[in-house]
């Protein structure tokens, strides 16, 4: 039996598709939450209040450097063992990815806000715009242009990061791939199974991420 044929039989292909669905679902929910919370966090990072800004920088530094796998384990364990919360592995993953993503996206928003020169605010006010009008008509449209490519890149990073939730056994692409391989290994008929399955998994991730990365680059150069 050929490798690909075997991969598609026994419901393997179907399982893999389900796994990909899970990957996309977790990545999209986490990205959406990160973007919403990250916009708020961006204003914290750009705040004029020293303490608020200091807290923001500390938080950003923490989520940037703390390994996500460790955070996943800690939350998953402590929520159930110490706090008695009954949260699923999927919820755990989304919470941790969002805590990380919101930090990263906040920094992007801060960058966009500070890249708009001060004279734009001043000219807006000189023209008699109210604060709300100033943001709605002048600052936000320009910021959105600068932020959109980065937001798309965040989604691709999120898709790649979701592979880590196989550490806490979420049935996403990586986990399904590993399960297919371990079943194949039990039969000893498919020594090439790891390579075939990981090739398919790699291509699947590439097809999810690459078009997005390309679109982000295109927007970057056309909106620059």
């Amino acid at each position, binding site marked *: 039996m050929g490798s690909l044929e075997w991969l598609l039989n026994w419901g393997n292909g179907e399982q893999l598709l389900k796994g990909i669905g899970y990957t996309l679902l977790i990545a999209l929910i986490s990205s959406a939450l990160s973007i919403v919370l990250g916009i708020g966090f961006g204003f914290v990072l750009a705040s004029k209040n020293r303490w608020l800004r200091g807290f923001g920088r500390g938080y950003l530094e923490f989520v940037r*450097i703390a*390994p*996500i*796998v*460790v955070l996943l384990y800690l939350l998953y*364990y402590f929520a159930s063992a110490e706090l008695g919360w009954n949260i699923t592995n999927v919820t755990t993953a989304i919470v941790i990815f969002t805590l990380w993503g919101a930090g990263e996206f906040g920094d992007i928003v801060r960058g966009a806000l500070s890249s708009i020169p001060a004279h734009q605010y001043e000219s807006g006010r000189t023209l008699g715009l109210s604060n709300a009008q100033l943001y709605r008509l002048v600052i936000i449209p320009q910021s959105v242009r600068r932020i959109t490519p980065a937001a798309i890149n965040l989604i691709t990073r999120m898709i790649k990061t979701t592979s*880590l939730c196989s550490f806490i056994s979420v049935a996403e692409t990586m986990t399904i791939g590993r399960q297919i391989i371990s079943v194949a290994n039990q039969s000893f008929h498919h020594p090439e199974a790891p390579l075939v399955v*990981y*090739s398919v998994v790699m291509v699947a991730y590439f097809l999810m991420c690459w078009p997005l*990365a390309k679109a982000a680059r295109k927007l970057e150069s056309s909106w620059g």
Partner: protein
Amino acid sequence: MNWDLLATYTPMYADALWVVVQLGFWGVFGSLILGALVALVRHWKVPVVDRIAGGYIEVARNTPSMVQLYFLYFGLPLIGVKASGFACAIAGLTFLGGAYMAEAIRSGLEAVREGQYRAAASLGLSQTQTMRLVVLPQALAVALPAITANVIFLIKETSIVSIIAVVDLMALTQNLIGMFYTSNEAYLMLVISYLVLLLPVSIGLRALERRFRRGIA
């Protein structure tokens, strides 16, 4: 919390931490070398190799590092290369990091303006001298923030090598919990070990960046 147990665990965590430090060091080292080579190939638009380098960057950046590690770990033996989990982990980190470093270094190289090359040539500098004395110092200063971000990213990525049978901090923690059910102690040691590793790295890189920024200002 069993405090005696923490004392028993400490040397084990020290060993695992040393594994992570070595992985991080060689991973960053390999990434910088591979990244510099790829960046130069792309910068000079060397025919054919440039295309291959471009493809490599896309694959490395658009697939999870976990898959890349598995691929090396299971793929290399099939083409007759026998490598330990540790060696595979370094190869995997280099493969991943090389692409990110290449983009960082290339953006630095592109920031050096044409006039600088001509000025160097009119001063009679050779091509190697121009590179070494004029272009690289300026390119590095521009690329440094991206490079330090990549260093942190790579150190963070070392936390997944337990999947290819490297006994790092994560694997040790999983083992201790699996064998003795000492979750509290094992997780506490895990957090302490990572703090010991990451705090100095974070502070050190920040200081380096500040110095460089002052250097070019």
